[in-house]
């Protein structure tokens, strides 16, 4: 197998929902080819109606070693949750 081609992350939007969900990654020479490869690899069983691809190298992630200082401080701030508000009926997709 030849892995000279860059790696791409694939996001698929299903018929239900508005969000594109990360489904996996693949190799492709360019964006066009990445979308086609994604179509062939990840939508064979009617999984999607829209595809996003982004080169893996463009994604920057947080450092797992810093998880404690990054996320733990939010644990005891219950007042930040909007659960005490009544949502108006007109508000969709919440």
């Amino acid at each position, binding site marked *: *197998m*030849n892995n000279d081609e860059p790696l791409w992350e694939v996001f698929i939007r299903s018929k239900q929902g508005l969000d594109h969900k990360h489904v996996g990654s693949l190799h492709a020479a360019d964006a066009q080819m990445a979308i086609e*490869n994604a179509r*062939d*690899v990840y939508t064979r069983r009617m999984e999607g109606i829209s595809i996003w691809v982004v080169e893996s190298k463009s994604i920057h992630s947080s450092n797992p070693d810093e998880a404690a200082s990054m996320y733990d401080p939010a644990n005891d701030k219950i007042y930040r949750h909007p659960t005490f508000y009544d949502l108006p009926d007109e508000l969709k997709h919440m």
Partner: protein
Amino acid sequence: MSDHLINCTLHLADNSLIMGHRLSEWTGHGPMLEQDIAISNIALDLIGQSRNFYQYAANLINAGNESKTEATEDTLAYLRDAREFKNLLITEIPNGDWAKTVLKLFFFSNYQFYFYQKLISSSDEQLAAIAEKSLKEVTYHLRWGSEWVIRLGDGTEESNGRIKLALEEIWPFTGEMFEPAEYEKACKENHVSVDVSEIKNDWQNKVREVLERATLSYSQDEEVWMQSGGKNGIHTEQLGFILAEMQFLQRAYPGCEW
């Protein structure tokens, strides 16, 4: 008329089956995982198309022939000999390297694309319906094949050399597409099937456009000697090998299912 319609339908079925079977040989051997899956998907699309045509052909054969053993999609695919197959020669020639495979697929999909576009208006409802369903698949095959031809032609020195070689080898197999067989001539009379000579211009324009984008010259003149015979059952030796592999099980164990 009925025999001509059966032959027209079998011709379309055989085209898709043999091309699909050839492409399926890449399964597990593609140059990359992603392309392995892509070409296997295309092979499956084509085999699906052939099933629709074979089922229709079997109905037509059985309707006019009550005494003999019943024809089914399986008997038509697995129990006919090479001389009864009516596929274009371009569908049976070996895959060769990736360049030859994608160029072959481009030429063939381009042909199917314009053919099905016209077949949609067939006076035969069944053929029109199969064409409509298949056209969506073929539109993607054509796009995929065109892009690979462009990518290889406009790629490295090696990829360019390979696609040029493929062009020389495959070009003589393209003429047959536009030479109507007797059954095709008969079927175009009542707009049952397509007048293949009418789609030649569209086919050539698309080929010219893609080859130019692939930095390949389109200088294929009409004088090149073209191979033909497939539509009338006169095949290259290659079809025998395909059928030997494809039909072995049904011939060795008749009616076997798994």
